[in-house]
């Protein structure tokens, strides 16, 4: 996995990545002591003015989230740095944890100080061994903050283990399955206390905003959304991996930066398995910016930009992802168990070219019916991915409905 610091370097600025994690001494020498004195209402205001958006996938404004927790934190709050990164193709959180863990810890402590929280838990996907090791080292060498407990928790592997209520449930009961809300984590979370669950990248940016201010953050960004973000590029490019880009960078530019050519890709998956397919070459000049993407019915999500190779079959690719997502269901809610199960089955038959008469029509219907009927958004995300596949690969699906495929089947399977 390549990590590239491209201008403007913000999170990824600093010593060479070959050296691994940046130790505390270097971190402080480069950026100064963490500005703990700025924590509290001034920082929350600053975050609101900066327009910093959450990086876990939902894109919720960070300042507003902190304000909501602060309002309820009379009983003492808990801060969770969410580095579960259950999204299989995304690598940005573990890259950040592995290279700049102290930025993440800065942000988490600043949040804790802003709410009077005395417990910070860094929740890292257990399968990301080097990220876990780096965070463990970073926490060990970190000077103590009086009255504050910092813990590393290894999250169980699984797509839904990073979902907010699943995080809370795991920390309370060692069960990483989502819960029905209400109450929401910011109302009653870990140990019944108001809990902030914030993605590690968001916390890292918060730590920089605390040092340099909201205006500094807004200096970057070319389109409607200000700032920079980490993205993960996968697919037929020479240098796949994690990059830091300005919001508003176009897909075309990003592909070039990653050493690829647009012609090698047939479609792009944006935002994660929770996101959606976009058609190429139509999307090449769309800015990678939450608002611009929303106008095309797509989202920035967790910053995943996954290119589908030109020879690959979109129906196969969609089927692979949906089968994975169905398998990752927490199996708590009927619509998810049976709905995703049926969707996966129909897709499997369509992809194999042996569909039943109603399969395509059912997929269309189920993709609408599944939305909002689980305890968490897992079925919603899968349904959204399915819908985008049905749209972007409409011609291909029509072929498959008659048992054909426009791609060489074997090659399509290898690539998809």
């Amino acid at each position, binding site marked *: 996995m390549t990590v590239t610091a491209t201008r403007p370097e913000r999170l990824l600025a600093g010593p060479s990545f070959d050296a691994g994690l940046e130790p505390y001494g270097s971190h402080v020498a480069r950026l100064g002591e963490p500005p703990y004195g700025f924590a509290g209402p001034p920082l929350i205001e600053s975050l609101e003015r900066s327009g910093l958006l959450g990086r876990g996938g939902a894109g919720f404004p960070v300042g507003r989230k902190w304000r909501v927790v602060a309002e309820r934190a009379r009983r003492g709050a808990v801060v969770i740095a969410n580095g579960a990164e259950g999204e299989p193709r995304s690598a940005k959180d573990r890259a950040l944890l592995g290279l700049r863990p102290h930025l993440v810890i800065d942000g988490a402590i600043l949040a804790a100080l802003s709410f009077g929280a005395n417990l910070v838990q860094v929740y890292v996907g257990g399968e990301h061994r080097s990220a876990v090791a780096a965070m463990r080292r970073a926490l060990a060498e970190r000077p103590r903050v009086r009255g504050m407990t910092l813990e590393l928790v290894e999250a169980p592997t699984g797509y839904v283990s990073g979902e907010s209520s699943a995080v809370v449930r795991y920390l309370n009961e060692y069960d990483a399955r989502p819960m029905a809300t209400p109450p929401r984590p910011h109302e009653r979370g870990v140990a019944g206390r108001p809990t902030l669950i914030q993605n590690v990248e968001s916390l890292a940016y918060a730590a920089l905003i605390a040092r340099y201010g909201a205006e500094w953050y807004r200096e970057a960004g070319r389109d409607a959304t200000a700032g920079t973000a980490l993205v993960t590029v*996968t697919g037929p490019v020479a240098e796949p991996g994690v990059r830091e880009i300005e919001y508003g960078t176009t897909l075309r530019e990003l592909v070039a930066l990653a050493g690829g050519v647009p012609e090698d890709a047939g479609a792009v998956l944006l935002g994660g398995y929770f996101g959606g397919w976009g058609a190429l070459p139509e999307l090449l000049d769309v800015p990678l910016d939450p608002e611009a993407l929303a106008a095309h019915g797509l989202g920035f999500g967790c910053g995943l930009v996954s290119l589908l190779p030109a020879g690959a079959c979109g129906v196969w*690719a969609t089927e*692979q992802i949906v*089968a*994975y997502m*169905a*398998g990752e269901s927490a199996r708590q809610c009927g619509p998810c*168990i049976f709905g995703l199960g049926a969707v996966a089955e129909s897709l499997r038959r369509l992809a194999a070219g042996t569909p039943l008469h109603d399969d395509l029509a059912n997929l269309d219907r189920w993709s609408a019916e599944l939305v909002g009927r689980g305890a968490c958004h897992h079925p919603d995300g899968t349904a959204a991915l399915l819908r985008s596949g049905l749209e972007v690969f409409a011609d291909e699906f029509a072929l498959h409905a008659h048992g054909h495929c426009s791609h060489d089947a074997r090659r399509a399977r290898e690539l998809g």
Partner: protein
Amino acid sequence: MTESVLWYVTRGAGIASLIMLTGVVVLGIVTAVRWQRPGWPRFLNAELHRSVSLLTLVFLAIHILIAVLDPYTALGWAAALVPFSSPYRQVWLGLGGVATYLIVAIVVTSLLRPLFGRTAWRLVHWLTYAAWPVALIHGIGTGSDTGALWMWVLDAACILAVVAAISWRANAADQALVTRESALPSRGQRVPR
């Protein structure tokens, strides 16, 4: 003569309670297996189950009250409230008290379920499978009609109904589990790259 009337009432109410209780158990199972027919929607099973259980309490109350108050039996309140305290057919009568307490617990936790929470409610509700046989045995042990053919037939019918319902439920639960488990692809599938 009055003594005989009260004695008949208490026996009759006791037998009626057993029949009602059998009905409650069967209806509870019919609800759980989601049985329905055109013109017989599922919610009727749930509502009937509830109504019949309250009716059971009524007959049970009559059975106990008359038995205690009847001067002919001279059982006294202690016999009813403290199981196994009465020397009269000590064990068999005591079992009746046990069954009653179980039934009361089940009904109370059901009426106040939001208060008790699902787990507590479920645990207590499963005690039905203890309450029913205990009530049956109490009836056979203390019942003055035990020798009669019609009583045996009645008892056999109740047993048959409950046994049939339980095996129906076990079968349905098995099937439901299989359907549920096979609905989704297994976890840890090859993660698509």
